[in-house]
């Protein structure tokens, strides 16, 4: 097998393996750690295939922003002494050894990619400027459409989120009825 192909197969196998672990873990934060590994592995795959920009976006948007969001949720939900104890448990070796090994393997792959004369296994390298030119050239309509996709998602999230905000406000003000309205009347 070609050495370049190893550069593809190793991160690809790690991506599949860690994704399988994500959906089988019972502990949400443990699953999250494997999710990060899976996203990083996909980023390496992108990089190896000659799409460094997509790889960077994968890390920034998915492994970065989305995990930070998750962190916010964990921070908002778990307050108090019990959560401190629980977080102590998260520092046990079985929590981080395997993800650490996987991440280390990915790092080695990245080093190989950088050290090797060939930075990719297939296709041509697509630099960020080419992506930008494509997006605002032939794919301008697609970008506009993506804007409407986000608009629909935003309007939708606003509407769906509001019901919980109002329920919460009602509970805080002491006028909350049950959550299970819907049998009679409406508003």
């Amino acid at each position: 097998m070609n050495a370049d192909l190893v550069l593809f197969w190793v991160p690809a196998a790690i991506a599949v393996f860690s994704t399988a672990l994500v959906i089988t873990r019972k502990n949400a934060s443990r699953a999250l750690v494997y999710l990060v590994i899976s996203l990083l592995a996909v980023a390496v795959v992108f990089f190896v295939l000659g799409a460094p920009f997509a790889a960077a976006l994968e890390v920034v948007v998915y492994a970065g922003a989305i995990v930070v969001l998750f962190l916010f949720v964990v921070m908002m939900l778990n307050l108090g002494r019990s959560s401190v104890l629980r977080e102590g448990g998260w520092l046990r070796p079985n929590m981080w050894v395997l993800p650490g090994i996987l991440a280390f393997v990915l790092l080695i792959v990245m080093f190989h990619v950088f050290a090797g004369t060939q930075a990719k296994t297939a296709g041509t390298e697509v630099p960020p400027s080419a992506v930008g030119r494509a997006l605002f050239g032939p794919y301008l309509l697609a970008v506009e459409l993506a804007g409407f996709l986000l608009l629909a998602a935003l309007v939708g999230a606003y509407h769906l989120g509001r019901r919980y905000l109002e329920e919460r406000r009602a509970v805080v003000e002491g006028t909350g009825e049950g959550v299970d309205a819907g049998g009679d009347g409406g508003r």
Partner: protein
Amino acid sequence: MTLLQAQALLPYFVLSGGIALLLVLVAWLRSEIVAFAGALLVLFAALFALPTAFEAGAQVVDGIVRVDGFALFFFGLFALAAAVTAILAFRYLPARAAHRQEFYILLAIATLGAAVTASAVNFAGFMLGLEVLSVSLYVMVAYPEDAKPPLEAAAKYLVLSGAASSTILFGMALIYLVTGTLAFAYDGAEIARNDRAILVLGQALLLAGVFFKLSLVPFHMWTPDVYQGAPAPVTGFVATVSKGAVFAVLLRYALDADLFHSATAGSMVVLIGVLSMIGGNVLALLQTNIKRLLAYSSIAHMGYLLIALLVAGAPDGNRDLGVETALVYLVGYFAMTLAAFGVVTALSRTVEDAEELGAYTGLLWRQPVLAAVLVAAALSLAGIPLTVGFIVKFYVVAAGVEGAAWTLVWALIVGSAIGVYYYLRIVFAVIKRPTPDVAATRTAWEGVLATAALGVAMVALGVHPTPLLELLKAMLGGG
């Protein structure tokens, strides 16, 4: 982008610009009536831009969309269906949601997504249009604020539809791997022999995802639950616009990519078609919930529609006849389905929808107009003469005979025969003498008017379909 291309895209610009304006207006005024009237205005403005766009001729813009008679016809159909949905929702939503402005914005965005999907000629346009449509639909299904069933239906729809989307995406990736282009059309001669297997696999995945969105057997499991849980006007919208858009893009893809060049895809579609026609009708037999009944009925109707797809796409087939049949069928299907869900909507005055067949007993003596429309819709769905349902079914059978799709034609005959039973159950329930304790229900005049218009359209098109057919021929000939 040339001026001619811009002219062809005018309805899309009007609709998308209108959505942006509407958003600003609603953010500023926070008024339901402004949102409702604004959405209707935007939809009709887009409709009025259609003839101008048609004059520009068939225009491919950036390889993403091809705006021709086919695409513009669907644009008009979707805009009309959205307008009907808006009118139905106007009196339906107040009992269920305290904030209703966003609904009309989402409706307009969904229409834009459907219109783009129907005009797509490459996978980028296909996927983006489909997602714009789907994301708006998830929220529209979950729109009522207090009730649980819509939320449950939306969650199911979100997960299953997302799975279908990713199947489609994976299929697209495999096809791209072989053809090297995102466009539907590709040069078949350049594909190496061993790559053909990957191409067929990709197309099979793509078709599976699309059939899922069209809720054909065996990908139909989500349909009754989502139809039942969703608010009635939204159910009508999902059943018509969403499926119409997906079918339009499927037809485009089948023609551009010469999908039925290989016998595999053809036999797959035949199998799915037979299963859907028989399965949909058999499953509908014992339903007492009218929304679930219509869900199964829509499965069968999508199965009938596959005949048109197969005839249009067959290598030696009647391309024009097939496309024309599909479009005629969809017009009829839109009218019947919207009318049926319109009646359900108009009768659903409380938080609970009027779902059970029992709620329709003796409707004729309480709500003669709505009852007449429901009877017309049921007869039309069954394909009884003098309704549009007969004309479109006749068209499909004629196309099937012409294209020698005998298996499917036989399945259609058997399926329709089974179907008559449950459609007539609706009719019998409606005309039954009522028991005296059933209170008269009050309904909104807008909804009654809209459904009555649909009912008149159904019968008028059934008696005198020539104008529709001529319009269709003119639009397809020009594109």
